[in-house]
């Protein structure tokens, strides 16, 4: 799951640093993700995991770090293919 999240971040978060260098708990907004880019990340995640974030998750905190995203995807019981 983390690999996929990272590839969505590479594609859409538009960070001035390399996503590989980000720790799981690093603050993405502090790393330079704008609110505009965060919407693109949400769309990218919805496409990558074939889900729709329910309303209550559409807030800043959900997309603050790789681990907060993983926690929410976990709660949405996202199925990760074996080699995903």
């Amino acid at each position, binding site marked *: 799951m983390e690999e996929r999240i990272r590839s969505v971040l590479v594609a859409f978060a538009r960070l001035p640093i390399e996503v590989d260098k980000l720790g799981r708990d690093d603050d993405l907004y502090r790393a*330079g993700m704008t609110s505009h880019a965060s919407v693109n990340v949400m769309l990218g995640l919805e496409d990558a995991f074939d889900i729709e974030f329910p309303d209550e998750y559409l*807030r800043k905190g959900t997309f603050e770090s790789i681990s907060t995203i993983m926690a929410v995807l976990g709660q949405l019981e996202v199925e990760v293919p074996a080699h995903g």
Partner: protein
Amino acid sequence: MVEVAIHGRHDAGVPDHLKLATDIGSEVAGPAAAEVDEQSRFPVEAIDAMRSAGLLGALIPTEMGGLGWTLGQVAEATTTLARYCSSAAMVQAMHQIQVACLVRHGDSPELRAFTERVAREGLLLASATTEAGIGGNVRMSSCAVERDLDSFQLRKQAPVISYGEYSDAILATARRTPESPASDQVLVLCRRENVTLKPTSEWDAMGFRGTCSLGFELLAHGDAADILPVAYGDISSQTMLPVSHILWSSLWFGIASEASDRARKFVQAAARRNPDITPPNALRLAELTTVLQEFQDVVFAARARYAAIQDSPDQTTAIGFAIAMNSLKVSASTLVVDVVQRALLICGMAGYANRSPFTLGRLLRDAYGAQLMVNNDRINANNAQLLLVHRKM
């Protein structure tokens, strides 16, 4: 209970905060409004009256020396003040926005002590969020805070700092460090004694002429404790953006209400001269009133929406709430022009004339500022992006 510093009319049933705003408006701000506008000068007498009545500390809790008003009460006072002098009301509103940020996010002994001084001494706070080269995108900074152990330095090219020269402190946005990306911002309290302002432009504008919104190069230094401890992104979504849009829309509603009153009096005077026939512009007044009521409902609903969730960061940082507050700003800033223009059509030449009891020139000029204070195109573009993921209104 609020002490009315100006000899108060004790009208039964009028809440204290409205009585205070009406007194300052009718006795101080209103009489000076035409001159403030003509000379594009700071509404010094109105702000002094607000200071001595404690209004500049209205949002600060009573245990910290303030009046402990709710945002709703401040919003209502802003509507009332705007009827008399939109510039004085705007200075007051912009100040209260900064106070709201300090009250909610200035959670350190040093910042608490400063907030208490705002209440006790009636310090006036200004804002430098926009930056040269960045335009109205207030969620990006190019300037950065430079820290040296316990102190900081900041240099910012600010295209507009309303009443900067008259303020006791300026809250400025900047990147957290010189290495930080443009969106990683902090809010810095720049105290007057630590600030040098070099004017870079004049203020001779179409409206809100009394706000003295010159451009400046801001040079500030100070104690690192004057950097607010929370990310500006959080301050913005939880407090600065909703409070700005709520107070501004309340202010614009005051401008619209005043224009509507002038139109109503104009139609009623015509009706008294000729009671047999309903004046033809009474129909236009009916149409205006429909728009004004729509305006009022938008403004009141937004206040209630925020009041219900203001202490819940989960809810104030939700995308749906951001969309609602953005929409409030866009509606209110367009409705104010619509209402004043309708009033102008009703009053005709009496409204077009600069010296007439029905004059609408200043109100219309001020009303046009609303769409530019954070350009509506930018706000709509922001909402367009947020709506790509939003589910239900």
